[in-house]
């Protein structure tokens, strides 16, 4: 049937063209065959020489990782050269396991070294040199060199390793580097793939990352990995069949990574870590006008040097299993109820929302009844008449129970959101958590059980004193304090201030220039500041701040970790980890704020006794440059 539609002429044309196509195909295939004949027979000798004796390989040269330097020029992360025993599988003429065993008779190779080596070997290219053992001493190098002839494919090479001269100091903010893992490699590849750099051809990409031995695993080392790493150098070399380099054909020099100039003052960090002594907690100090983070304390801490060459399993287990959680980055990832440190913010919310005037007060009987529940004040018999300023100074719970009820949760959470509570601050280190800014929507989303989803009015009451569902990071608390100290101007907190180009030595600011200005009235801020000055003059902070020589605004906080169910609090009787957290926020000088801080001492009891003294000594150092007794003097590492 189909044939009937066909015209004879088109069929004829088609068949003649099929003939032509077949001829065309034959000619092309013949050209191909001739090409192969040319390469494989005529030029065979040339190419086989090229392939057999002079294999061209590309080897990479490490780039120097950028230094991390504190705001005063003290180097806190640097590099040191060390000898590594490395194996290039392409050059090895026996099974690798046997080689490792016989090498062990010359240089001690631990199980950990073996594990690391075999892990790196998987997926690595055969021409790639892989470290079997790092940090050889001179004697070991000499012993190997005298027997080097017996181990083709094995070399001693100089590698640069990261070193943290101040050990545990600031470990959580600096982070550490470690051996590049398969996952890191994939990430590096993806990163190169994303970049539109024309020189990133498909075949160069794996080469560009293969020489990367160490990458930042956590902290600033990880967040600024790209800047710190620099660019690997690579050279085209001729290698023998055994994998040894015969001659260098061309090379591109590596470009060192950029140096990071921190906003952090490492000496201040040192002081504060000492002030915590054996206690757990977190502290953040912010320079209010810039958002510079001067100190970023997470206690207890750990020694990042232990991670450089792969941490040893026992130590890892010990660090990981410790109830003290030394690996936990508390200011970034720990969330705490703010306790009474929340009150100044509540008071400000009340003024801004016109729920209160500063002089409006209550008569505090020592408790607040809401429905069938009695919310108690610390002062059993109450504080008597308190207005807003006094409510902050003496930390009157009843005032804030009533305030919270009058404001309602919507007004509270809307205001606190602007101050950054429960929000990502955008600090320049990966892994920040949000915490919880309680709201009706939050609760609905949080509980899967519908009976728990509705917001009860009772839920609002304890929000007023920084308890209940409130849960924030110390970074957020410090940031909120900095915002009120800075008259409502929001500066993004940052640990790195400048990046220094390794070649031009040009420094570029990383500090964000854009700021948000919250619409907060100056006179309202003055009321809050007044109340917070009162805390340290006559209120809950008067003992630790006795005789202070500069105006300082503060607020103590004691956060319940564990609900007592109305029973009397007895610190000794409950387990240590269930005791209250002590908190403190402050800014100074109160009249022209320069520094803001927030800190928590975990399970330490009252904010006034455990947290405020740390704040006092920190501020004394910042304002008056007095070094507290009992803290060993700062020594710059050699």
């Amino acid at each position: 049937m189909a044939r009937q539609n066909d015209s004879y002429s088109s069929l004829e044309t088609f068949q003649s063209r099929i003939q032509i196509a077949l001829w065309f195909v034959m000619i092309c295939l013949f050209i191909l065959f001739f090409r192969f004949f040319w390469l494989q027979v005529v030029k065979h000798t040339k190419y086989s020489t090229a392939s057999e004796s002079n294999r061209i390989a590309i080897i990479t040269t490490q780039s120097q990782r950028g230094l991390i330097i504190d705001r005063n020029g003290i180097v806190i992360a640097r590099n040191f050269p060390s000898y590594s025993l490395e194996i290039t599988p392409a050059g090895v003429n026996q099974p690798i396991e046997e080689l490792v065993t016989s090498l062990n008779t010359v240089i001690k190779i631990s199980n950990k070294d073996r594990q690391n080596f075999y892990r790196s070997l998987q997926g690595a290219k055969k021409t790639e040199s892989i470290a079997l053992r790092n940090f050889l001493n001179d004697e070991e190098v000499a012993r190997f060199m005298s027997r080097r002839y017996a181990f083709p494919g094995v070399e001693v090479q100089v590698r640069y390793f990261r070193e943290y001269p101040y050990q545990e100091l600031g470990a959580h903010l600096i982070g550490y580097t470690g051996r590049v893992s398969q996952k890191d490699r994939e990430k590096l590849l993806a990163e190169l793939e994303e970049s539109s750099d024309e020189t990133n051809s498909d075949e160069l990409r794996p080469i560009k990352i293969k020489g990367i031995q160490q990458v930042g695993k956590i902290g600033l080392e990880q967040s600024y990995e790209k800047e710190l790493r620099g660019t690997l150098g690579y050279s085209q070399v001729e290698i023998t069949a055994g994998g040894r380099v015969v001659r260098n054909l061309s090379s591109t020099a590596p470009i060192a990574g950029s140096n990071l100039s921190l906003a952090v003052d490492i000496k201040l960090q040192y002081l504060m870590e000492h002030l915590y002594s054996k206690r757990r907690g977190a502290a953040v100090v912010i320079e209010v006008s810039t958002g510079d983070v001067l100190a970023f304390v997470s206690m207890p801490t750990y020694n990042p040097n232990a991670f450089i060459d792969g941490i040893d399993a026992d130590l890892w287990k010990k660090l990981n299993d410790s109830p003290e959680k030394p690996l936990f980055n508390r200011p970034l990832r720990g969330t705490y109820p703010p306790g009474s440190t929340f009150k100044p913010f509540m008071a400000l919310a009340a003024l801004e929302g016109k729920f209160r005037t500063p002089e409006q007060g209550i008569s505090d009987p020592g408790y607040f009844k809401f429905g069938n529940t009695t919310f108690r004040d610390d002062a059993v018999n109450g504080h008597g008449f308190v207005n807003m300023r006094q409510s902050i100074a003496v930390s009157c719970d009843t005032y804030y129970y009533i305030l919270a009820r009058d404001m309602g949760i919507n007004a509270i959470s809307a205001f606190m959101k602007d101050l950054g509570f429960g929000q990502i601050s955008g600090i320049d280190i990966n892994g920040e958590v949000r915490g919880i800014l309680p709201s009706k929507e939050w609760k609905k989303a949080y509980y899967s059980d519908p009976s728990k989803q509705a917001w009860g009015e009772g839920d609002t009451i304890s929000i007023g004193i920084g308890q209940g569902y409130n849960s924030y990071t110390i970074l957020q608390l410090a940031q909120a304090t900095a915002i009120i100290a800075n008259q409502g101007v929001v500066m993004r907190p940052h640990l790195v201030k400048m990046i220094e180009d390794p070649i031009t030595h040009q420094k570029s600011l990383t500090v964000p220039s854009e700021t948000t200005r919250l619409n907060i009235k100056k006179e309202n801020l003055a009321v809050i500041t007044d109340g917070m000055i009162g805390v340290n003059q006559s209120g809950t902070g008067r003992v630790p701040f006795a005789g202070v020589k500069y105006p300082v605004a503060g607020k103590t906080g004691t956060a319940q970790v564990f609900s007592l169910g109305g029973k009397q609090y007895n610190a000794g009787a409950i387990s240590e980890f269930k005791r209250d957290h002590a908190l403190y926020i402050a800014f100074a000088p109160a009249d022209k704020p320069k520094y803001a801080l927030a800190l928590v001492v975990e399970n330490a009891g009252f904010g006034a006794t455990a947290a405020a003294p740390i704040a006092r000594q920190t501020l004394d150092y910042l304002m008056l440059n007095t070094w507290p007794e009992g803290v060993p003097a700062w020594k710059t590492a050699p």
Partner: protein
Amino acid sequence: MENRSVVKRLSFLWQGLDPSLAIILLCLVVVGNITFLSASSGTVVSWVEQSRNLATALIIMWVTSRIPIKWLEKISLWVYLVGVALLVAVAIFGLIKKGARRWLNIGVVIQPSEIMKIAMPMMLAWYFHKKDGMVKLQDFFVAFCLLLLPIFLIARQPDLGTAILVFAAGFYVILFAGFPWKFVLPFAVIALLGIVLIVIFGDAICAKGVTWPLLKSYQQHRVCTLLDPSSDPLGKGFHTLQSMIAIGSGGLFGKGWMKGTQTHLEFIPEKHTDFIFAVYSEEFGLFGNLVLIILFFLLIQRGLQIAASAPNLYSRLLGGSVTLIFFTYAFVNMAMVSGLLPVVGVPLPFISYGGTALTTLGFGVGILMSINRGRRLIQT
């Protein structure tokens, strides 16, 4: 007796599968798989994946061979329109990777330009079939417009390699439909002259600072490195140089399976995808290459034979174009790996790793088988 009845009952499975096509294909797949084992040397996972891709392609081939060619004819226009619509969607919402906007996320990530490799010849074959018996010169003009619209969209992604392949697929249909030679020849002569000029004056036009009109800088770079691979030994010229060493050092009979030092020492990039031929050629030598060339020739010869004896114009044009596309893939790939053509991302049919290309190829062979089956059904 028992056995025979089982064979009989299962015979529908291979009924209509052209035996010679099937045997050639089987040989290619075996060659490909053996080479792939060597190229992936030990990394079992990707070999398993490749075998899975092959199985998928064979299933697609089998299913397609069962589809009456009439059905394909009916959907041709729609496949084309959907293909073009997807290309427009890519231009608007496409994902950008390595600076090119080629992919579309519709739950799974697809590359619509791949669809055009089959949709294009289907569309043009359908168009000429409609006009059968009274094809006029202006019909060729319309056909070129239909062809150039998707080409334009693909070329600006940019994806020059695919654009060329899709153009070839459509152009074959136009040629088979009887496009007068007098229009083809001048272009051929100009192209030939251009190539000769580039070869002669290569040094001058590839000098630093010289930019070519119409071409992007990376395209210029590719042409220049082809002229002199050693001009950029660490960059674009690296793999051409290395694959030429691999092929050349293979000699007459090769270094033996799994023994290609050049390829096993990781000097060949993309050695299991676009450059797999370098592995094959190094290990099996000129003799192996001859076997492969003959296999491809037999495949093409059989395909053209099927096309020539197809019952209607649609099947003829489609069959001819699909067959020549196989040839184009094979030729361009081998020519590029041996340094005859610039490096464009074209896989070696049935041998290179990659699911999408295999699927398209399986579909293509299926079409040929279906055309062949259609002929036989009419004869009986």
